[in-house]
């Protein structure tokens, strides 16, 4: 009993250490965002004993167009994720429940596209977008990010769907459900946790995506990544403001993650099949 207590204390301590290590940069940025520029740059840094201020947030909100960037980020991340799911769900469904000899190869090929460095196709994509008038358009970026995240979405949905017993879908088919009814009334509710976690992952990836968003947008479609970037260059580095801008950019994802949490952990399939 005692040994168990000791080991559980050690494990808990290790878990906290790991969590703090991962969260440290974020927590540090959070603290920095409440400091003055002078305190932010001072060495040795002050941990908690500094003059807390909201000035950075005020300056950031006044200087940059936070809400326009936020709207663009929401449109780009939300739009690209919705589009990726719209294409990914039927694709993963087909591959999970009607696999052929080529299914495995297709999946690997899809994944292999993620191994290509994006900069390799920057010029062709840029020229294509210029000619088609898609530069600096939220729609254009959403389209590109949807394509980029599609392999991840299909992989995640595929492994999730594979956990759904095929017999349940067959039962629905015998019961007379059409393909759409089978997908919407039977599969989707059972795969809801998987759908939610897939959506959340590709949403976050699109939200954080900084290569395409910085290269393909300038003013009208600039999302929060561009908003942050704007604070890093012109007048040198302003750590405190930069931190405040980062915090403002992260906040929406945290809120969405919080709402998805319930779905992420819900195991609906339990008890369907013995």
């Amino acid at each position, binding site marked *: 009993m005692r040994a168990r207590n000791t080991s559980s204390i050690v494990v808990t301590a290790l878990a906290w250490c790991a969590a703090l290590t991962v969260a440290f940069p974020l927590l540090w940025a959070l603290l920095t965002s409440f400091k003055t520029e002078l305190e932010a740059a001072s060495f040795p840094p002050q941990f908690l004993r500094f003059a807390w201020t909201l000035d950075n947030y005020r300056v950031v909100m006044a200087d940059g167009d936070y809400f326009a960037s936020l709207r663009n980020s929401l449109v780009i991340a939300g739009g690209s994720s919705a589009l990726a799911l719209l294409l990914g769900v039927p694709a993963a469904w087909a591959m999970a429940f009607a696999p052929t000899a080529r299914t495995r190869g297709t999946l690997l090929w899809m994944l292999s596209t993620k191994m290509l460095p994006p900069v390799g196709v920057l010029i062709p994509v840029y020229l294509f977008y210029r000619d088609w008038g898609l530069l600096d358009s939220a729609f254009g970026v959403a389209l590109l990010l949807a394509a980029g995240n599609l392999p991840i979405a299909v992989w995640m949905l595929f492994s999730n769907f594979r956990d759904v017993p095929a017999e349940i879908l067959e039962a629905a088919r015998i019961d007379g459900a059409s393909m759409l*009814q089978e997908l919407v009334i039977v599969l989707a509710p059972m795969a809801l946790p998987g759908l939610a976690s897939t959506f959340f992952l590709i949403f976050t990836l699109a939200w954080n995506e900084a290569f395409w968003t910085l290269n393909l947008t300038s003013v009208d479609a600039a999302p929060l990544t561009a908003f942050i970037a704007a604070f890093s260059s012109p007048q040198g580095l302003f750590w405190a403001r930069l931190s405040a801008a980062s915090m403002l950019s992260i906040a929406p994802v945290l809120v969405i993650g919080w709402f998805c949490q319930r779905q992420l952990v819900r195991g609906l399939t339990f008890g369907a099949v013995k």
Partner: protein
Amino acid sequence: MSTIVLEGVTKRFGDHLASDKIDLVIPNRGFTVFVGPSGCGKTTLLRLIAGLEDIDTGRLLIDGVDMAHTSPAARGLAMVFQSYALYPHMTVRANLGFALRVAGRPKAEIAERVERVALMLNLNLLLDRRPAALSGGQRQRVAIGRALVREPRAFLFDEPLSNLDAELRAQMRFEIRRLQQELGITAVYVTHDQAEAMTMADQIVVFRDGRIEQVGTPLEIYRAPANQFVAGFIGSPRMNFLGGPFALEHHAATIGIRPQHLSLDPRGALKATVETIEHLGSESFAHVRLESGEHLVARCAPELELSPGAAVGLLTDDRFVHRFDAEGQALPVGVASIRTKAAACI
């Protein structure tokens, strides 16, 4: 309430021939059981009938109409799966009414039909529960109820009892049979358990390697197995097989004799040593080894006290000796005596 006829039904999975030109009549209102070892093609054939797999060649007639390429729903058959396959996110009520709901039936009619089936299966107090909150037996009843609500032309059962414990299995076996007889619905039932086949079937179909080995009533198959495979598969404990001089005596390559037709008797021509005795209470089975090395099982009286190592004699009841040729096909009964006479004439 349908007759299902299969004509030359063939199905391949790659190189594997899962159904090899199957011809079969599944009679109206009858209880037909597909039985065979795992991988023999019985479940595949059921899925072909259900429409869950596509038939490569051949015809599937349901009430005279070829439905080999009709969608599963349009065939009007209902299936009960081994895993029950209940919709986990729906209540029992919604599970039972699902087929009617997707068919667009009016709500009042759905409620009424669900209620009626729930009463029939003692599910009326569980209607608002989800499958996760039900016991194995209750889930099984919901699965059967879901099939019943549709008033199908035939029931298809895919090893529906294999996830239940022995006691519940025996009870459900009886329930399913009673329900089928009351409603007079054609049923096709797949199992690998020969006892289930013997107790439930009007007609047994024995499968091996994608082919039908024999079709008949349980007693026909038990009394006159078409070949050595069927003889060994149906009946428990399984039939004893003997080759060599004993078979030659009966003018066969192999003879088969069931444990109850083999009695322990010092006068018996077969000399053996007892290995173990299995006591079942009402009867006992002696596992013995012949001097020639063959292992046999003989039924004996439970009062008999035998210890391993004891020497015994075995007497065969010649009326019940099954004879097989070198290919394992059954030879006609009574030929042995005719041949003996013929030999005498020459």
